[in-house]
């Protein structure tokens, strides 16, 4: 079947089969390689995307269920101010990732800050656990997300003042 949905802000169509995973369609049909598809059971968090604003592992989302919805991948999210806040905050806090989990960590941080603009350390740790990886130490990720929250709050405040 052919489905239509909004992908990173653009209306797109895709031909999908009944057993196709959304992650595969995003990678193979649209070349969005920031969506990794490693565990294929929703555990590793490398294929996270925003589906209608909710963070979901796209490897366990049937492709046809994206019909009429809005999908944002890391490539689309990278065009936003939030992305700049998060990626620069991570860099400033010295977060070193293996490179493979970075996109999922950024998206998890974005989802968390959307829900709670001032999360405490426990909440950060709890959320970041959904993108498990051996590469990142918890202390630096907490510092990084708290720094991002500050930076983001200042930006929103400045914008509101304009």
């Amino acid at each position, binding site marked *: 079947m052919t489905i239509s949905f909004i992908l990173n802000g653009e209306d797109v169509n895709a031909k999908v089969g009944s057993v196709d995973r959304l992650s595969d369609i995003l990678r193979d049909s649209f070349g969005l390689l920031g969506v*990794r598809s*490693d*565990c*294929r*059971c929703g*555990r*590793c968090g*490398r294929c996270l995307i925003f589906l209608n604003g909710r963070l979901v592992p796209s490897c366990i989302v049937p492709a046809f269920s994206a019909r009429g919805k809005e999908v944002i991948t890391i490539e689309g999210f990278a065009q936003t101010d939030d992305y700049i806040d998060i990626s620069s905050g991570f860099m400033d806090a*010295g977060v*070193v*990732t*293996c*490179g*493979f*989990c970075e996109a999922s960590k950024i998206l998890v941080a974005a989802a968390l800050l959307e829900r709670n603009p001032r999360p405490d350390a*426990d909440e950060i*740790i*709890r959320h*970041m*656990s959904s993108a*498990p*990886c*051996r*590469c*990142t*130490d*918890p*202390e*630096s*990720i907490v510092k990084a997300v708290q720094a991002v929250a500050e930076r983001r709050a200042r930006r929103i405040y400045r914008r509101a003042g304009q």
Partner: protein
Amino acid sequence: MLSVATVRSPVARGSVRSIAFPKLPAGYRSILPADIPGRNRIVSFGAEVPILAQDAVSYVGEPVALIAGPDPIRLEELVAGTKVFYESEEPFVNWESFSSEQVAAKRVAISGDPELAFSIAGSVHEETYTSGAIEHYYSEPQGAVAAYDYDKIAVWCATQWPYHVRDSVALAIGCRAQEVSVRPTRLGIHLDGKLWYPSLLACQAAVASIACGRPAKIILTREEDFRYSPKRARSSVSIRSALGPSGELTALDVRIAINVGAYGPLAEEILSQAVLSCSGAYACPNIRIEAYAVITNTPPMGAFGGLGASHSLFAIEAHANRMAQATGEDPADWKSRNVLHKGSLLLTGEPLKEEPPYEALLARVSAASDYRRKYAGYELVRKRRSGRSDGPLRGIGLALAYQGAGPFLSVEASNSYTVEATLDKDLLVRILTSAAGGAGGVMEVWRRSAADILGVGIEKVSVASPDTDQVPDSGPSTLSRNVSVVNRLVERACESVQKRRFRDPLPLTARSVYRVPKPIKWEGGQVSGAPFDTVAWACAVVELELDAWTLEPRMLGVWLCVDGGKVVAPDRAASSLRSSVADALGACLVERFDPSADAEGSAYFRYGLLPMQKLPPISIEFLEPSGREAVKGIGELPFDTVPAAFLSALAQAADSPFSSLPVTAAAILKPLEST
């Protein structure tokens, strides 16, 4: 590009009679061992692993054939429709007791007169310490791509050892090594899990590419990677120790068995490192060691955050805590009395060159963790406790260990490793090495070293992509070698450039070559040679509270103090060590599976890392270097210290000794039930 899927052995041990493929559509082709144009073997540290098993199979999931074709999903169906006819044999599962045909490597070492020491010992203590298999759990599954690039075959894969990939592919396709170009891709976190296995996949991809005349890629699914790629080898270390009348360590009798799975590709190296580290940080005049690398019919097992030393260091440190307990001493005091000193003879007969900074490490870590007061307090509570509901079950444990770094112990001395540095006219520095930086910030260490020596900004220093056509052979990149060997080569090359800098015109290029100084020799129980170039030390304290009813150890804190010589990037190093401490705690608590009992593959769905929310505050400190010390490898120290400190803390909390990792709720329940 064609995808390649693997047909795997359904049995753990047996012989393949025939393989019946379903009717392959046009554009698809099967590849059998007979299609390999060169040698159907890769060689790793002296052991040989077949690229495709031809007659005998040695583990469930061993590759026996490949199918190449354009559609990966169709390939999955074709592999599922392929039937492998076999004759199965009884697999080797046992490894703690084993038959002689299972021995892949053996080491015996004797120093002093252990028999006499045991006969006059004040007390003798005996225990067996086991540690389980650990999955590397890197984010990306392993894979390789191969394609012709004009007159060469080019291979892309994430590997710690690009020249091993090059030589293996050349042997497999029967060409000269210079006709293969390896272009390593991003390595990520490898924890020594990508030493030799990428070479196997690269050979399979190259063979498929040549057979089909098109570029070919083989990418394991995460489940395949989990089930069939190497894991940390399991080990069992039995220690019998003799103490003198005042509690000093007088003799050790150690038996080590390491389950290296099928073929034992790293068996020699793992065993050598395990034996040489087996007395840990302690001076012991009489030692007898018998060590075996044991073949079983599980996927090949190997390294994890170091090769073999952590098996022994964990065991001896856990045993040291137990000996201290038996003498009624605070383990810190017992260790203080028995620790190695400058000039103490090592197993190889070499004297220790530097005084271990044990007292300084202990002072720092004790002050940070309040170890001595807590230990005494928890001991008092433990002795007075009437049952598990009587007060908090708390414990604190301390462990001391070292990380020796240097050349591989089982590679011939003729092997030399090279790094090249170039300073060009724009004062840009380029470092050429085949060593892979991974994700641990090692590249920053190399860049800073070069920048300091040449007096340029770090932003002017770059590390070239480790393409074998462009860079010299710098040997395999393991956690410690990258710092201890490769960084030293970077420094030497840059120093050589600096000497000529104002004498000769730019650009200037210098090469630095490392040759194994004095290889280890094993002859009739006598070991000789210099095992390590540099030794880094660490002391760890772990504090925990045991929930008496859920049996869950709740970690309260981990403190690690490290003597790592000159620490080039302290923040990066501390962050990396914190991650490793988290991994070491995971190995103590949750990372468990038995590869020999996972034929149906369900462990993949159960296996996971320790969730971040269960991690305690982790404090990392570095001792300030005294004078101009070298940069030392420190990445393995958490794996060498934290598990033993954890077991010691748990033993105090549960008032019962533990000797196996990971610790299960059943193991904790047993002693608590009796109280």
